[in-house]
């Protein structure tokens, strides 16, 4: 058998997947998500017969918030744990490259986060169906966009975790998530500010991840879907951004002294 980049990467990915889906945090958050999503049934019942609307808007928001939490918790601790606990020694002393480790970690965590998101989505779909909203096909599209965003955030968390401690990494990640969702507003503010500030904000606007691109929940809520070209642009954006972050993470890991 020969070495291939993909095979070795998948071995790392499989290991990461197993390790993360067996983490208690994973199940605790999933349980909370389950409770939250089913609780929307009650909220729907006190909404003056806007049940389905309330369940869909809050349910999709619940899936998003919990998957963000899972991503940030698991993602920022991922590399740090490997380095701090020296488990990375096992991997890097074997015929594996830094890039394979980073990409493998990414894929493994991405798989477990995507799995939990799909699990929550199943709970959500059942809840909407039970409330009489039928099979919410479009929510699947919203979840697809969300998983793209989560992929980007996992890459971001891994990038941070190659140099920051988990808590600091989590804080950075949450900051980027907040800024990433208000870039549009930031751009609007910059229109009114001076030339220098305007340029500065413009630079930020193009460099920071624009996470609102992945938010089609309010569109889906009114049974609309983004165009195919918009969807492709978003997929490309996520792929390019994650690639840049993973390359950066690999570089930082390579330069690290163990």
């Amino acid at each position, binding site marked *: 058998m020969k070495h291939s980049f993909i095979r070795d990467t998948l071995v790392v990915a499989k290991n990461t997947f197993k390790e993360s889906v067996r983490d208690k945090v994973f199940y605790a958050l999933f349980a909370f998500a389950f409770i939250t999503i089913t609780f929307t049934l009650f*909220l729907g019942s*006190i*909404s*003056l*017969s*806007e049940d389905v*609307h*309330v369940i869909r*808007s*809050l349910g*999709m*928001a619940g899936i*998003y*918030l919990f998957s963000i939490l899972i991503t940030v918790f698991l993602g920022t601790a991922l590399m740090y744990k490997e380095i701090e606990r020296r488990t990375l020694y096992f991997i890097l002393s074997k015929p594996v490259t830094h890039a394979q480790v980073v990409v493998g970690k990414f894929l493994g965590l991405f798989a477990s986060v995507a799995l939990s998101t799909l699990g929550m989505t199943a709970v959500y779909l059942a809840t909407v169906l039970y409330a009489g909203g039928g099979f919410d096909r479009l929510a699947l599209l919203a979840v697809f966009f969300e998983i793209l965003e989560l992929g980007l955030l996992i890459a971001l968390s891994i990038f941070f975790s190659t140099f920051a401690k988990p808590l600091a990494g989590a804080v950075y990640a949450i900051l980027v*998530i*907040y800024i990433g*969702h*208000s870039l549009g*507003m930031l751009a609007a503010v910059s229109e009114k500010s001076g030339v220098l500030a305007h340029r500065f904000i413009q630079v930020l606007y193009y460099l920071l991840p624009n*996470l*609102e691109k992945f*938010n089609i*929940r*309010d569109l889906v*809520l*009114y049974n609309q879907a983004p165009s195919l070209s918009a969807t492709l642009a978003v997929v490309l954006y996520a792929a390019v951004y994650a690639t840049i972050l993973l390359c950066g993470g690999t570089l930082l890991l390579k330069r690290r002294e163990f």
Partner: protein
Amino acid sequence: MPEVVRHSSTARWALALTLLIALVGSQVFFDRNAPQGHDIPLSTLSPDVVRAADLGLHGAAASLLWLRVVQNVGMYVLQSPKTMSSDMQAVVELDPKFSYPYSFAVLMIPGIDRSQTPQALAIGERGMAENLGDWRIPYYLGFTYHFVLHDPKNALVYMTQTAHTPGVPEGIKVSALNYGSQTKVEEQTREIWTAIRDNATDDVTRQQAQDNLDHLAIIDGLKAAVAAYKARYGTFPTRLDALVTSGIIPAIPQDPFGITFGILHDNGELTFSLGK
């Protein structure tokens, strides 16, 4: 030695119990001394702030605010009728495509605080501009022009739009098309409230319509009784109680809005006042 162990375990239990009592006690003490009720108006956050902080989950934020508003309709009436319009404004600003809040605001706000009618109409207008295809928005707008502002001309405009909204229920369509055909304003009002009641999808609206219908029925009953009194005694009663003592009606009915009725002796006109 065992004696000492027993002692310390008893002491430990006593300490645990004391702490537990202190915990519950301080909570009770706090609640006793806390300001009663919710004095602060519900809307404390501007929609802009919420928009900036909700991670793009505007629809969910609007849903939560909507739940808060509809759970507190009674509290608005009692404590801060002025804030209902700004809260509803926030809901529709966060989620402009959420249609029910527009019509709900138009129907409910003037009933809670008549001075907020312009704000209610503005919310309804905004809903019309969003073009959501919800018959309730033009219908309730038309009704508000008719019932609150006594403006049949504008009412007719919205009633016509209601009738042309796709998917409008048959009863509503008939009522909207018939607008203006009733010669008596009260009859017109009664007909619309009946249509609203019969097509309501939620209990708050249904109750609101029923209360108004009951209110109108009570006024009609009292007017009839006053007329009967006049016919029997040749003069109007000085007090409404006379209708009961003279055996014309068994009792003065309870008004759903808590209105106390009176009467002018000179011309038999009914007077209305809130409270006793």
